[in-house]
């Protein structure tokens, strides 16, 4: 009996460690970009001063900044190795203007997600409301780790980052959704 119990405990331990390992691996994949043709570095940070070169295996200087409005800088932004010029913490974008909240519906793009914002539109003739929604493409920094569909996200307005992206993720609130994410109506 004792042996079986021990074995089961070991299995649980094994699963836990395996899940941790898979999460770390996913995280690493999330943070690294495919084989790049140009050297990835933060613009404006000089990595080759005599002091740094002398250190040989130094981590190098990393630039990061606070975005303001009480948003915490994720640990991965300060300690990580990723280079993202569109990241609000380690890149060249400033967050100003509107702050939106939405629910993630798609994470298939590299470093950008699509969120859904629901709202009610008033129809005066019938004194009633109708449900409407908008999909907003939002840039997500590798600092946040893998985000899944259904998570709630707070994003801030910044300058245009691409043809359609004008927002940047500032905070991720993990969330479980039952059913299809695209059919949910969640008012914030």
């Amino acid at each position, binding site marked *: 009996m004792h042996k079986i119990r021990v074995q089961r405990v070991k299995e649980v331990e094994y699963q836990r460690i395996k899940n941790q390992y898979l999460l770390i691996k996913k995280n690493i994949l999330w943070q690294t970009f495919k084989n*790049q*043709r*140009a*050297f990835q*570095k933060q613009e404006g940070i*000089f*990595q*080759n*001063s*005599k002091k*740094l*070169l*002398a250190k040989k295996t130094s981590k*190098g200087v990393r630039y990061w900044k606070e975005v303001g409005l009480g948003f915490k800088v994720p640990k991965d932004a300060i300690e990580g190795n990723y280079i993202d010029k569109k990241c609000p913490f380690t890149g060249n974008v400033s967050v100003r203007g509107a702050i939106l909240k939405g629910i993630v519906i798609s994470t298939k793009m590299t470093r950008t997600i699509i969120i859904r914002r629901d709202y009610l539109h008033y129809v005066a003739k019938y004194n009633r409301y109708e449900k409407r929604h908008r999909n907003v*493409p939002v840039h997500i920094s590798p600092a946040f780790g893998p985000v899944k569909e259904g998570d709630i996200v707070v994003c801030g307005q910044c300058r245009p980052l691409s*043809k*359609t992206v004008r927002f940047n993720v500032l905070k991720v609130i993990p969330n479980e959704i039952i059913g299809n994410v695209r059919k949910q109506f969640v008012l914030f």
Partner: protein
Amino acid sequence: MGISRDSRHKRRLTGGRMPIHKKKRAFEKGRQAAMTKLVSGEKRVRRIRVRGGNFKFRALRLSEGNFSWGSQGIAKKAKIVEVVYHPSNNELVRTKTLTRGVIVQVDATPFRQWYAKKYNVELGSKKKDKKEGQPEATKKSRSLIKKLEQRAKDNAIDALVQEQFTNQRLLVRITSRPGQSGRADGYILEGKELEFYIKKVEQKKK
């Protein structure tokens, strides 16, 4: 003559077409790319009047540039010898086109001379020359000798950079935009960046 930089010709985020209800405007116009070529000894730069009465200098042929050595804090004018790598397009390497971000080989003599003057050490000299002894052509005052001794404490440079001095060629990344400013300026690659690009160049040779 046709190159326009508007967004009216593009589709919407939803995929729908945008109705074209305006003609192309002059403030949206674009011009032909410069495609600055590396031609030894030649410098051809055209001045172009742009919007607002300002000028852009379109370099068509360049051979020299001002390159900075970041860790030493100096910049010297040097000749560009060869285009070695371009992260966007291999074609640009073949046609020896200078753009921003291209990796070129630059003549190392101005930097070697500066280093010799400052630290009294000949970079890139082979061991045979050392045995013959350094040519003491100029007399050095006592204060100068003292200064040199002081400086000798931190005259270490990146090993990979030092290797490049033996070939008289330094790898440099162009950071100016030759088609906009008319110059090909850049910085000498050092550290991790240098390792990265050396690897890329080796890969290409294979």
